[in-house]
Structures are given as structure tokens and as C-alpha cells.
């Protein structure tokens, strides 16, 4: 068992969580509270002919039954506003909400939901990505041309958005290549699957509503309520109690407005808590399935000279936050390589599946799996060791990437060295074992973010932040940043967070951005207090402000540690006048500019700020007779810039890796011919268990990074999820003699590949 020795860090929310005293949404009860249930479409594509709630409303104990007729008639969603709160005219996936009920208890609510008369004519199912892109395909959105789309967003029929990335002359590059390798890779969709099923509680007081919800993005949730219920932002308060995980599945605006509307109509607080099955079917945040065609031109010396790609990304029935997926997918199938000629066309395709949305590094594990499986095939084609092939072709500091970006100091090559060394790459192994290697990358997302820091008269600190803690420990780490600025102990600070009414804006627990952005905000706020403390200390110690140092809970004169005054005393002094209140909202670091970048449908995810790099080396054993694979161990190396909280950082890598193993081997949504999910339950949708988890070792390549987060930190939460499945794929390919070009690489698919033999 390999456990990295890291400094201990006890998180502020930890005691609540280990004693059971911490409250999650499901744990909340308000006097007079009603229970909500949704009536779902239950059919993947249909024209609504009748919705009648008369009988449902007549059931004793039912306080409200709402449909599209009861809320403002408007379409919402970022970039491509294509959906309504409640199904209107057409249902486009099985989990679409047709009606919502609030009743005295769960049984009556369910009875009323069942009593809603919902009649429809079935429409043809659109579920094949390639077929959906043809002119003959039925349309998922017949009114697609009417939608009020924003930005540079090319669209056509079932193609919700299109992007390309392009550099050089791919035709010429391909023509000049010594050899060309072309393959198709197909990835199924899968789920974020936080262990906490989401809940929402809404309560109105006058014209204001407070909503307790399990969201990763309180401000997004608030804005969604404001938009759909036509309310100003200061009358909608979102509070998140403890959040039981998200992994992107709880990003975006989901059901807060439905419950708020019910509570308003019922004139009572209303609560919904999802069952596991609802958690599988209804949220618009499934990880997208993808089809990836890759064609790569190589020289005999192993250098890559051209890559052409075609990508189709399953959007599902509505565009949640997925408009940028095609461009991001294109970046991942192109990969962190020095390829002079590149052209990738990438489309986001409507189907009658559950909508896709940002699940932990959207498009990246699938794109990386295709790219890196392909890379091993390329190395094989020129008889090169795949690691040496990567070292030769991967970008390094100062190199130009696939859209022309020149990278500042990066640690990708060091990641490859560290991970392969830790895994013992190159050692002799039994013939049913192999070590597979893959590299990955992921951008950081600078953005606006705010925080307050204050010290009260007794010297006790408060951090009031818009940031959201979803388990990663990123918000918990803010204490450390504030304490370090003020020469105090992290334990001196409490954190007030996850409440849109008290704290300034933050994007939320999304895009691995909490530490990157809110960390800068907290440091900026603490710096203001530091200045105040130093001024008071200078007066008290009769020294120059510039000579005051804050350390160990006191201010002292530089070079004279004995000449000091405690921060508690300074706080007491300050409390009688200008109080110690700092605010931070620094200007975000710039995104790099790429002169002459030649991308159609740019959604802002080709030029990467503070990019993160990784390499995973996975040792796999295969039971050849059955196709069942087991991951025996994995060595990870990550360049996420400066690591501020080592315990949390290791936890992010370990959790991301295990999710990646699940995606590689056992996790995949299975759709029936009726367009409905066949495995919305944990027995048939298989997460990795404690007994499956391999030892994981992690090396952090702490590359100094400017234009990043505090002290040069980049993001981290999503990056570990990127290359694991790809590395497993490459290990399996070594054992089998050929890759399994379907994801997940289930036992049966592995067995099929091995029995098909040489079907290259």
C-alpha cells in the first residue's frame, strides 16, 4: 500500500461530516413543508396531445400541480436557449419534467403525479449521432432556427453547435507523410454520480424566496431562477448546506425554479429529494457519448506531421452548458502534441437522450482515450516505444501546440518521466500484464470572483466567500491562504460560504476554478486587512509601516521579534474605529492571445490559460479467458502548478483516477431502442468499489506559473480524470495485441476484441 506522506490538514467542515451533525439538503425540515414529485415524460420523443391536471389537483392533500401553463413562457440555457422549465408541445427525453406536484406527503404527491393525464403521439427516436447529422434525420428541435443563439455558434438542423480547430495545411501534411493511420473510436456516455442524490427546498417570505439546494454553482442556480421566474437577483437567495459531491452533475441550474414555483403556488415550503433513479434520469448533466475519427500522418522517424479529425458529441435533447464541448473535444483529440498541420471538425449533435453537461473534465476522458489509444497505434506503426514516441512529439516549454499557442513553462515532459519511473515502466511482466501510459491536458479557467475577510474585536477571523465547497477541500484551503497573509493560524478563521445573499459572486465548484479565482480574492481581501494591521502595529511599536511583519499571531518589527504586539490586540484597537474588513475581487489573469488562430465556432476553449498537464502509467492484468481486467496499480504525475493543500491535492488525484477506472471498464449508460436508459441503478451501472481500488501514487510537478492562481496554483480537480481510461486502454492493447476501440472497455468488449483477432 503506497500512501504518500503529506502534511496533515483538518478541514473546517470535517467535524460536521464525521459526526453526522452536518446537514445536507435532504436533512432539512421546515414547518408546514410539503413534498414535491415530478411527473416525467417517460418517453424519449413525443408530441404532447394533452396534459390535464384536474384530477391531480382534486386529490385531498394536494396543494399545487404545475405545468408549462403556470410559469413564464420562455426558453433558457446558455448560448443555445432551447428549453423550457416544463415540457411544452414536445418531449425530447424520458426525464423531461411534464408536471410538478406539491402535496402533504410523498405518497399523496406520487399519487397526484401519477394522476396527471399526459397523452402524446410518439415521434421517431433520434439516437444515432451520424444518422442525426444527415438531412433525412427527424429533427429533435423543429424550431431550431428560431432560438436566440449568442456568440460565434454555427448550427444546422440537429447540429446544435459546430466548431473546428485548424492550423497549417492538413492536406499537404498528409500528402507528405510517410504513412497514415486512420481509426474510429466510440465512447458511450456515463454519469457524474455523486453519492448524494440532489434535493431542493424552497420557502417564500413575501416576494422573496430562499432556496436550499444541492448545487455546485449557487450563483448560476440563482440566475436560472431569476431568468425563468422573471425575478431580480436580490429577491432570490440560494443557500447550499453541505453538498454531497457533484463532479459536474450538480453544475448548472436544474430544478430550483420548479420547486420555487411550487412553493409559491402552494403558499408553503416545498421540498424534493431525488431517488437514485431520478438522479440517473432527470438532470441535464450526463457525460456525453462521442464518436471520434482520427487520421494521422507520420514520418518514418516517428514525427507526427498532420492530424485530421472528425468528432460527433452527443448533446442529448437540450443544450445545457455544452455549447463549448465540440471545441474542447477537438482540443483533446488533437492532444498536447507538436503537430504542424491540424484540422478537426467537431459537432454537438441533438439526440433524444438525456442532455449532456459538464461532468468532471467534459469531453476530455473520451477525447484523451481516443487520442492516446491512437498514439500507441502510431508508435506501433513506426516500431517505436510509445513513451519514447510521446517524449518526441509532446509539447514542452516554448513549443507550439495544435492551435498555435506557444506554451510558457510547462511540466509535461517531466510528468511523463515521473509517472513512467514510478510505475517501473519497462520492467519484465507476466504475459497477462502490461503497463499502459497516457498523457493529458486541461485548461484553467480564470474568472471574476469575490470574497470578504474580516477580523472581529477578539481577533477571530471570518472569510465570507461566494465559493462553493463540493468536497474537494478547495474552499477549506481558503483558510490557509488568509492565515498565511495575516500571520495567523488557519484555525483562527471560520468560513461563511454557499449563500448568495451574503457573499459576492463566484462561479462555483466548476471548472476547477475555486482556488484559482476565489483564492486570489481571499488573498486580496486579506492583504487589505494586513495593511490595516501593519498601520496599527507601526503606531503601537513606533516603527515604520514597511518594517512591520505579521507572523505567529502577532506583528513585529523586522529583525526584532521581541518588539511585537498581538493581532488580537490590534483587532481590539481597530474595532473602535475603521474596522478590519477586507474585500477582494481582483482582475482575473489574462487568457493567452494566439495571433492568427484559425478556428470556426470559437467558444473560448482553444487558447488555454495556465494549462495543466498529466501522465498516468497504469499496470493492468487481464483474465484472457473472460476479458475481465483489473487495474493493479497506477502512477500519476501532474503539473497543476503550485500545490497549496497537499492532502486535498492527493485526494483529488485519487478520486479522479478511480472515476477514470470506472469510465474505462465498468461505467457506461446503456440505451434501449426506445431511447430510454436501461441501467439507471447502481447494480447495473457499476462504480468501482473499495475492493477494486488499486494503490495510487502521485507526483506533483510544481511548475512555476504566472497568470494563474495564488502562488502559481493552477486548477486540479478535473485533470486527474483525463488520462486514466486512456492509459488502461494502452495497457490492454499491449496484452491483446490490439486496442479495444469502444469505451467503456467492458469485459465482454475485451473478450470480443480478443476473439475477433486482428480485426485492425
Amino acid at each position, binding site marked *: 500500500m503506497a500512501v504518500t506522506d503529506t502534511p496533515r490538514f483538518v478541514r473546517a467542515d470535517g467535524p460536521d461530516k464525521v459526526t453526522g451533525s452536518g446537514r445536507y439538503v435532504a436533512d432539512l425540515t421546515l414547518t408546514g413543508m410539503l413534498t414535491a414529485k415530478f411527473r416525467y415524460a417517460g418517453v424519449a420523443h413525443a408530441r404532447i396531445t394533452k396534459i390535464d391536471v384536474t384530477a391531480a389537483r382534486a386529490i385531498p392533500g394536494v396543494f399545487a400541480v404545475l405545468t408549462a401553463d403556470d410559469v413564464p413562457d420562455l426558453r433558457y440555457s446558455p448560448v443555445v436557449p432551447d428549453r423550457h422549465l416544463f415540457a411544452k408541445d414536445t418531449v425530447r427525453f424520458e426525464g423531461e419534467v411534464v408536471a410538478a406536484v406539491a402535496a402533504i406527503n410523498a405518497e399523496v404527491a406520487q399519487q397526484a403525479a401519477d394522476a396527471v393525464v399526459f397523452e402524446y403521439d410518439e415521434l421517431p427516436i433520434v439516437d444515432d449521432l451520424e444518422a442525426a447529422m444527415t438531412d433525412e434525420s427527424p429533427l429533435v428541435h423543429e424550431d431550431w432556427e428560431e432560438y436566440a443563439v449568442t456568440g460565434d455558434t454555427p448550427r444546422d438542423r440537429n447540429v446544435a453547435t459546430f466548431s473546428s480547430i485548424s492550423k497549417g495545411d492538413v492536406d499537404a501534411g498528409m500528402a507528405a507523410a510517410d504513412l497514415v493511420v486512420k481509426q474510429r473510436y466510440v465512447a458511450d456516455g456515463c454519469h457524474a454520480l455523486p453519492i448524494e442524490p440532489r434535493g431542493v427546498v424552497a420557502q417564500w417570505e413575501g416576494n422573496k424566496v430562499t432556496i436550499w439546494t444541492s448545487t455546485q454553482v449557487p450563483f448560476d442556480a440563482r440566475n436560472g431562477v431569476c431568468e425563468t421566474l422573471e425575478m431580480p437577483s436580490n429577491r432570490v437567495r440560494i443557500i447550499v448546506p453541505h453538498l454531497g459531491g457533484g463532479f459536474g452533475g450538480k453544475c448548472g441550474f436544474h430544478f430550483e425554479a420548479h420547486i420555487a414555483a411550487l412553493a409559491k403556488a402552494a403558499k408553503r415550503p416545498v421540498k424534493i429529494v431525488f431517488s437514485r433513479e431520478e438522479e440517473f434520469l432527470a438532470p441535464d448533466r450526463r457525460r456525453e457519448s462521442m464518436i471520434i475519427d482520427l487520421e494521422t500522418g507520420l514520418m518514418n522517424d516517428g514525427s507526427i506531421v498532420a492530424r485530421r479529425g472528425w468528432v460527433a458529441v452527443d448533446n442529448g435533447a437540450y443544450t445545457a452548458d455544452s455549447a463549448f464541448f465540440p471545441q474542447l473535444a477537438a482540443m483533446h483529440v488533437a492532444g498536447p502534441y507538436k503537430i504542424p498541420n491540424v484540422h478537426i471538425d467537431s459537432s454537438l449533435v441533438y439526440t433524444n437522450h438525456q442532455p449532456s453537461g459538464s461532468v468532471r473534465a467534459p469531453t476530455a476522458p473520451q477525447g484523451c482515450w481516443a487520442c492516446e489509444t491512437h498514439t500507441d497505434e502510431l508508435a506501433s506503426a513506426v516500431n517505436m516505444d510509445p513513451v519514447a514516441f510521446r517524449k518526441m512529439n509532446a509539447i514542452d516549454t516554448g513549443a507550439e501546440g495544435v492551435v498555435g499557442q506557444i506554451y510558457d513553462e510547462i511540466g509535461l515532459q517531466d510528468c511523463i518521466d515521473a509517472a513512467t519511473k514510478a510505475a517501473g515502466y519497462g520492467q519484465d511482466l507476466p504475459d497477462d500484464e502490461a503497463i499502459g501510459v497516457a498523457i493529458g491536458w486541461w485548461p484553467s479557467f480564470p474568472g471574476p470572483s469575490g470574497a470578504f475577510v474580516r477580523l472581529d474585536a477578539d481577533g477571530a477571523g471570518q472569510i465570507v466567500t461566494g465559493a462553493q465547497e463540493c468536497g474537494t477541500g478547495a474552499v477549506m484551503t481558503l483558510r490557509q491562504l488568509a492565515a498565511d497573509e495575516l500571520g495567523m493560524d488557519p484555525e483562527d478563521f471560520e468560513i461563511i460560504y454557499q449563500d448568495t445573499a451574503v457573499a459576492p459572486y463566484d462561479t462555483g465548484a466548476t471548472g476547477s476554478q475555486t482556488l484559482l479565482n476565489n483564492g486570489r480574492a481571499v488573498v486580496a481581501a486579506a492583504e487589505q486587512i494586513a495593511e490595516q494591521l501593519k498601520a496599527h502595529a507601526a503606531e503601537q511599536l513606533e516603527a515604520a509601516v514597511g518594517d512591520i511583519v505579521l507572523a505567529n499571531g502577532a506583528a513585529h518589527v523586522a529583525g526584532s521579534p521581541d518588539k511585537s504586539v498581538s493581532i488580537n490586540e490590534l483587532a481590539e484597537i481597530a474595532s473602535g474605529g475603521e474596522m478590519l474588513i477586507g474585500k477582494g475581487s481582483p482582475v482575473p489573469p489574462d487568457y493567452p492571445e494566439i495571433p492568427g488562430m484559425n478556428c470556426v465556432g470559437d467558444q473560448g476553449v482553444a487558447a488555454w490559460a495556465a494549462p495543466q498537464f498529466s501522465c498516468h502509467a497504469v499496470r493492468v*492484468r487481464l483474465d484472457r479467458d473472460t476479458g475481465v481486467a483489473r487495474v493493479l496499480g497506477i502512477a500519476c504525475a501532474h503539473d497543476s502548478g503550485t500545490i497549496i493543500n497537499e492532502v486535498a491535492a492527493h485526494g483529488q488525484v485519487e478520486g479522479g483516477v478511480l472515476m477514470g477506472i470506472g469510465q474505462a471498464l465498468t461505467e457506461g449508460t446503456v440505451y434501449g431502442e426506445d431511447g430510454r436508459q436501461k441501467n439507471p441503478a447502481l447494480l447495473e451501472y457499476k462504480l468501482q468499489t*473499495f475492493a477494486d481500488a488499486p494503490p495510487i501514487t502521485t507526483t506533483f510537478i510544481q511548475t512555476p506559473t504566472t497568470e494563474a492562481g495564488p502562488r502559481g496554483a493552477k486548477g486540479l480537480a478535473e485533470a486527474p480524470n483525463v488520462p486514466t481510461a486512456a492509459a488502461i486502454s494502452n495497457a490492454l492493447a499491449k496484452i491483446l495485441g490490439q486496442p479495444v476501440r469502444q469505451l467503456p472497455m467492458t469485459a465482454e468488449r475485451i473478450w470480443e476484441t480478443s476473439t475477433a483477432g486482428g480485426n485492425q
Partner: protein
Amino acid sequence: MSSPSFSIAQSLDEALTAMAAGARPVAGGTDLVVGARQGKAPLPGSLIAIDRLDELAAITPATDGTRIGAMVTHATLMTNPIVVEQYSALADAAALVGSPSTRNVGTLGGNVMNGSPAMDTGAPLVVLGATAELQTSAATRQVALADLWTGPGQTSAADDELCVALNLAARPANSGSAYVRLEYRRAMEIAVVGAAASVVLAEGGAVETVSVALTAVAPTILSVDVAGVLVGEQIDEATLKTVAETAAEAATPISDLRATDRYRRHTVGVMARRAVEAAARRARGERIAIPVNRALGIGAAQ
């Protein structure tokens, strides 16, 4: 049926009387309560809890074998010395059921009477020659398992009959048994396919008697006749290959989410072969830890 009720039986008589009046027995409740919540079958209107009947929770030597009470839990089966030593296949199977908590509350009687073709303890009981002891307030009868299971989730037991024990035949010298299954994870699994084998070896190592039964490849647990292939023969690469082929041919699997029929047919042959091999090794006196899946590395358990 009586009005909705729930009671905890303090004696077997009380339980049987309640069942005669229409109550359904509940032991661990894992199948019953989960099934009701998933909408498979509503909870019965009248329930009698039988999990506290100590007389049903004993493993006792009998003149011609061993009597295992229906309320013996999987957790007990996987560690009880008599079961582990003499009826290893049953211990192998019990150790693979669900999770530690389901093994704690789940019982042998519950598993058997659920009648699922995917039940892990079924194939071991068949190869170990078990009979089910069914009791009513009026009578007791022994039923061969082949007669008990009539289809997926169906048994021939009358509504008022309670399974009180499984009676297992005495084990001869030089015998061994094993159960293996295909699983995609190392825990929390349900059998995709599985196989149990019991082998008795003669002097010199040839097979004297052998029985094999398969999990999840037919409407009920499926016995496969491999005597013609193995009796009088040594267990070697050639005979094991024939075992695998025989099992695969005998199977009539379905395609579902967990596997296609084609893959099931192939892997059940692999499991049958591995079960026979492990049973023979045990018959030769080799100690293979419970469960074989994890001791020898079968599929994800390697």
C-alpha cells in the same frame, strides 16, 4: 388475508401458525424490502419475522450429513468450520454474496426460496446434494432442489410452507467442492454466470464421482452431466476442456444488460472448468481459501 400486520415470531410454531393464516415470512428482508421499493412486488399484507428463531440458525451434524438451518446467514456460512471444510462450495458462494452487510442479514433460506437462477448458493447446494426441508404447522417434507425451483423466482413450495433447513449429504473421503462466478467488480456483484463443482477422487487420482451446476444460464440452476466425460479420468487439460465445452453446450442463457447469451455461454464454460479444477485440488487435500474467486483470481477478483 388478515388485516395488515407485522409480528416477530418467538417460536417456530408461532411462525408456522401465522403462515397458515396467510402471513409471509421475512428474515433479513434484503430481497423483500428492496423488491417492494423497486416495485417488483408490493410488501405482503401480513409479515412474520423469523430471523430471531435460534432453532433455525444452527448448523448441526446429522447422521447422514449436515443440517443447515434456513436462518443461517451468509456471514456464518463463509466462516463456519464445518461448511468451510466439508461444503467449501457453499462457503465460496456465501462469501461472494453482496456486501458484508447483506451477508450479515441475508440467509440461506431466503436465498434458496427467492428462486432466482442467479442465486449464488443454489449451484453449490445442488452439487452438494442438498434437499430443502419445508414445514407447515401440520407436516414436514424434504424436497429435492430440482423439484423446488420451478422457474425464475418461482418455487413449488405452498404459501404456508416455511423452509426451515437445508440438509446436505455427508461428504466422502477425497472429496472437494468449489464455486466460482464471473464478476465485473471484486465486490457488490451479482453472478453474470457461475459454476459449482463437487469432485470425489479415487485412489490414483481418477475421478470417482463428479457433479457440476451452473448459475444464471437457464430459468433455474442448471445441473450438467459431466460424469461421462470425467468419471474414471484424470483431471487434466483435455478433460477440463471437455468440461468447459459440455457446460457451454448445456447452457441456455439469455442476453441482458449484464452479458449477451454468446458471452455467457463462453464464460460459463470457463467457470465450470475452473470450478472442477478447484474442486479437484481441494479433493487432493490442497487448501484453497474461501472464496476461490479471490484466492485464485477469477475475473475481477484476480
